[in-house]
């Protein structure tokens, strides 16, 4: 079942508006650091929207987009980021550890390499249960620096575990490199370990969607693990500790209004997956400019409600800090 391009765009817009809301709230509530997934929307939506009930997901510090893409309640997610009782984890996790098992999220680990490690355990359990569900490990290129990633790739291949290794590569050589591998090809090591591999433009939701579909089919059919590298354009604010609208608040009309697209953020707007996707779909006649504006407005409405929920949610009682360590 192919994804509807319009729905994918709608989801991408929600992901973007979510992160922009995080910036707004981070400033208003003086929050610490979050890692925003701005720029990762195309891959995120295309991948997570294809998962099924029972699939297990393991993500990283840069997790917000994955959760929104999969359909997690943005109000509960924002509440968690604010540390509120109504948050996904009741305030115990915060941005780095949001979890929603009802949608398959097993873990957000902020340890580089954490998600890839745990994912093989989920895959092991799925194989034991003889389902056609899959485990999906989402991780950055940086995770491949860690020995645990190598060990996980090896054991997944050795035991033919049903796991999709989905690498979000946002490393640009020279600037802001988040991995230091001796090879430029991120698929070289998984290939050496006999894992089926592919690379795809992660800024193109259709290409990414197809690549993910191929990968998922491979894994669901019992052929063992699959490693997919999604090449992403790095958002300039990816590593900011104090949040700023580094590339401006997204203006979807910049997709067609060349005056807007030639401002200081022109370089970003050229590669921004949201604007890219809007341009493509409009050119192809799949959506109109008005559709895009309408979808964006709907996302804004959803996020305003989500903010209302999150900010109205109380903090947990202090004594809750001592409870819930053991079952």
């Amino acid at each position, binding site marked *: 079942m192919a994804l509807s391009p319009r729905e994918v765009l709608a989801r991408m817009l929600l992901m973007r508006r979510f992160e922009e809301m995080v910036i707004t709230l981070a400033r208003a509530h003086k929050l610490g650091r979050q890692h925003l997934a701005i720029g990762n929307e195309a891959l995120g939506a295309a991948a997570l929207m294809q998962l099924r009930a029972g699939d297990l997901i393991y993500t990283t510090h840069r997790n917000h987009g994955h959760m929104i893409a999969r359909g997690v309640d943005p109000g509960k997610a924002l509440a968690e980021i604010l540390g509120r009782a109504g948050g996904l984890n009741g305030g115990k996790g915060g941005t780095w550890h949001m979890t929603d098992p009802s949608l398959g999220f097993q*873990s957000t680990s902020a340890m580089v390499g954490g998600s890839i490690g745990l994912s093989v355990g989920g895959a092991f359990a799925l194989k034991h249960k003889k389902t056609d569900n899959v485990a999906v490990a989402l991780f950055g290129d940086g995770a491949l620096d860690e020995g645990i990633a190598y060990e996980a790739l090896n054991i997944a291949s050795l035991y033919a575990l049903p796991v999709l290794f989905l690498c979000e590569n946002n490393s640009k050589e020279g600037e802001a490199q988040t991995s230091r591998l001796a090879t430029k090809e991120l698929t070289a090591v998984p290939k050496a370990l006999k894992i089926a591999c592919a690379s795809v433009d992660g800024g193109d939701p259709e290409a990414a969607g197809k690549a993910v579909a191929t990968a998922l089919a491979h894994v669901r059919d019992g052929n063992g693990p699959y490693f997919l590298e999604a090449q992403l354009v790095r958002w300039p604010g990816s590593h900011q500790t104090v949040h700023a609208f580094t590339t401006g608040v997204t203006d979807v009309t910049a997709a067609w209004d060349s005056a807007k697209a030639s401002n200081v953020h022109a370089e970003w707007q050229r590669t921004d997956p949201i604007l890219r996707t809007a341009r493509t779909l409009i050119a192809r006649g799949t959506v109109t400019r008005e559709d895009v504006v309408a979808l964006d407005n709907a996302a804004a409405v959803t996020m305003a409600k989500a903010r209302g929920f999150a900010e109205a949610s109380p903090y947990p009682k202090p004594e809750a800090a001592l409870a819930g360590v053991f079952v």
Partner: protein
Amino acid sequence: MSQKSFTVAMIDALAHSLKNDPNVVVIGAHSFLSDRGLKPEDERALWDAFPDRLIDPPTSEGVCTSLATGAAMAGMRPFLNYGTATFAYEAFNQIMSETANVHAMSGGQLRAPLTLHMFAGIRGGGAGQHSSSPQAMYANSAGLELVLPASPADAQGLLRSAIKSDNPTVVITHTKLLAMTGDVPDGDFTIPFGQARIAREGRDVTIVATSLMVREALKAAEALAKDGVEAEVVDPRTIVPLDAETICASVRKTGRLVTVDEGNALCSISSEISALVAERAFDALKAPILRVARPPVPIAFSPPLEAHVTPNADKVVAAVKKLTQA
């Protein structure tokens, strides 16, 4: 009741678990089962009975821990055997940052019912890299249960509880206990966590000892009895949770405390028991609290060097005499 060795008791606990719960899987089965005193046909029968659930993984302690943890979160009940305890250091981040946090960090949404087992202690010729007693490090974490069995019966009952527990549980077995034999109840039974065992009653001094040191404490108590000193020996059996009540009650009765643990003295289980009593049963204390522990040195290979730093009954006797003769 039947007589069993410590290892056979542990293997029986594992076999009960495998039989009773199809989600139990053993990772690192080989070093847990082989050369452990099973009859060859009994060992063979185990491997044959559970061909998919006894696994001999790569030498990759890190991902074995992630695999066991991830599988536990997804509904299984893994038993992971590391072999020598130092090998688990390869997985320390997985244990501390992932496994221990699963339940609390998810706000109770998830749980990680798995057992992490390791062989520890000064074992005779283990030298610097195969002689660790890391119990205090696991006690100092948050989110891990910690079990230190000291007899065959306890080994079987506590291990069975560990596997049944819905929490991640670290079980540390002293290598020198493996050959110990003793009476073990028949069938499938459990021993609850957080209940200390009074291994010997006494009125003059409390000796709190763990793991192999329980045996040494009992030996010391026998020797002391000949001099008219009646030592009470308390074995907490689990450190997390800890039965502080039984320990404090004993000290309130005897007024004196010696703690014995084979870990490095600094920030050890011995230190913890001492601090606990200095906090909660201070008024009952008639004398300083003495610790018998390993001095903070890497263990040397040479037998006389190893012996010099290993806590034992003689050292316990000496500590008690310091208190009772003062």
